[in-house]
């Protein structure tokens, strides 16, 4: 008997109903966004004009499918590029932070730990504007004082990567540190005791142990980077990632069902990726 559960059948039934309603609530907009990708119409709205895959594969006007839409593809490419770089950086920095806070003792550690968490609770827009402002201050300063032009400090891929990195690193640090905390330090000592060098211990014992966390931190960072809007919006230059491209398309051109097609594609893609990370995490535990 599960004492945590309601005992009367009526309440149990009611509770299940609530859960079902909740799951429907979660699924509804995704379903709607995905569904109209297959509507043979120029607008993502009813009436239903029949099933089509044109919004994915058609190459003729007016229905340019997403796989023939240069700008969407370019946005996708930018997103992938940004996502991979920023996730790799965030995982690397997160690993360092995890070791720093789990393994090292130093003055004011608690204070620094709070600092490490803080980016998570700064609104994304503010991170975006503050980095934009700061980078511009430096760029302007350099230009005025020395005539040096560091264009990478202007909105563009580099700043987008920095902006996303600034808060993703907190997430990766927490994920990796959580796993490192569970690491039994005597495993390292055992390896050392068995004759391994420090580097070898790191490569054969510690990192393999952290692998699932590194992997899921990477996936989480990648997905968050991929869908990030608020921070990116303030920092984006001419190489816009997919969410920004989609947004621009939505408010400046018109939402044909091609946007639904992209949404559907993203849902399937990120769903698969998230599932993969869970499976990997499970398998290793």
């Amino acid at each position, binding site marked *: 008997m599960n004492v945590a559960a309601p005992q009367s059948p009526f309440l149990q039934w009611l509770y299940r109903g609530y859960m079902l309603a909740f799951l429907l609530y979660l699924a509804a907009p995704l379903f709607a966004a995905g569904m109209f990708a297959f509507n043979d119409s120029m607008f993502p709205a009813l009436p239903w004009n029949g099933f089509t895959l044109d919004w994915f594969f058609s190459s003729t006007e007016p229905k340019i499918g997403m796989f023939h839409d240069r700008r969407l593809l370019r946005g996708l490419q930018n997103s992938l590029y940004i996502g991979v770089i920023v996730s790799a950086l965030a995982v690397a920095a997160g690993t360092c932070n995890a070791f720093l806070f789990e393994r090292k003792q130093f003055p004011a550690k608690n204070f620094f730990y709070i600092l490490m968490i803080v980016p998570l609770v700064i609104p994304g827009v503010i991170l975006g504007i503050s980095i934009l402002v700061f980078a511009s201050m430096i760029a302007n300063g350099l230009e005025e004082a020395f005539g040096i032009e560091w264009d990478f400090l202007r909105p563009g891929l580099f700043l987008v990567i920095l902006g996303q990195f600034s808060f993703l690193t907190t997430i990766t640090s927490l994920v990796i540190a959580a796993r490192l905390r569970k690491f039994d330090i005597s495993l390292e*000592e055992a390896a050392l*005791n068995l004759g391994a060098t420090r580097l070898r211990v790191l490569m054969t*014992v510690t990192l393999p142990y952290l692998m699932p966390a590194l992997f899921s931190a990477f996936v989480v960072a990648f997905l968050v980077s991929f869908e990030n809007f608020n921070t990116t919006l303030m920092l984006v230059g001419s190489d816009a990632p997919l969410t920004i491209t989609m947004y621009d398309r939505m408010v400046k051109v018109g939402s044909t069902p091609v946007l639904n097609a992209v949404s559907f594609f993203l849902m399937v893609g990120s769903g698969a990726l998230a599932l993969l990370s869970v499976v990997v995490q499970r398998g290793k535990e």
Partner: protein
Amino acid sequence: MHDLQCESLSKRFGAYTAVDSVSFDVPRGSFFSILGPSGCGKTTLMRMIAGFETPTSGDIRIKGRSVLSTPPNKRPVKMVFQHLALFPMMNVGENIAYGLRCRGENRADIARKVATVLDRVGLPGTAEKQVSQLSGGQKQRIAIARCMVLEPDVLLLDEPLGALDLKLRERMKIELKQLQHQFETTFLYITHDQSEALLMSDNVAVMNAGEFEQIGAPQDLYNNPKTGFVAGFVGDSNRWPGRALSVSDGKVRVAIDGGGEAIALAGDERIAAGGPVELFVRPEVISIGAGSENTLGGTVESLLFNGASSRILVRMANGHLVEVGQAVMDGSVSIAPGETVEIGWSRSHGRAFSVAG
């Protein structure tokens, strides 16, 4: 010839002295235990030998050569950790092969040695198993195999049975001793469980607050403790505070606090008439009925039946509670709580130690 020698080894953490000038020698091939309560510095001592802590002073010699400047991964001592520290991301074979690989031995040799050592610990053919598929006792043996395959001069074991459950622990005690016989390697074993130390060791060092109180064979420690601490820590004992009335010929007459007198062996040299002492008497040497040499009166408080190690709790007239070991309580001896009884023991079974201050 000694495999391991420690000489005035000390370790201070800031102002706190965890290990205080400890010296001992472990002869080749023997089973040496360090027994002491939690926090007395056992692990710190072992970690210094393994090279994970740098001694504040003193020297560690293995096979006669000082290893102080040898880094931990070069020392010829291997260690079995309290929670074993088997590598979860490697299978059994890889765990065992790890040290050999670090040494750069070739594949064929490694495979052969792994197979041999698995055989010796009684787990042939398990090389492909995952660590998580092993039972607690099997893990234990793999942890030992992983060290033994490297043929260390000394094997260090830090409370390796601590994590096992009661029944398994009983079995592993016997098995560990047998493994040591088989490998003929020097074992340095740490524990806070006196029964483990007594059961398995050739020699036991009793450690207290960073210092060694006594080193000796198990029987020695049990029967001839040199300090009150050892008398109290090794085996069960009744312990009463009192005052020495007179000392002569290695015998002390003790006035027990609260009333009553007894004669006991003088445990140490510092006992002087009038000085405070503690009297130790083991339950199993006390019997119901007036003793030939020492007798005290009291009331039976309760009977603690526990088969062969049953006890009678007697509240003595002086207020102290005495455990009386009564081997079998099969109803043949009829004693009921509340009865007034006398208890007795022979003078050579009591031991008095001086109390500082």
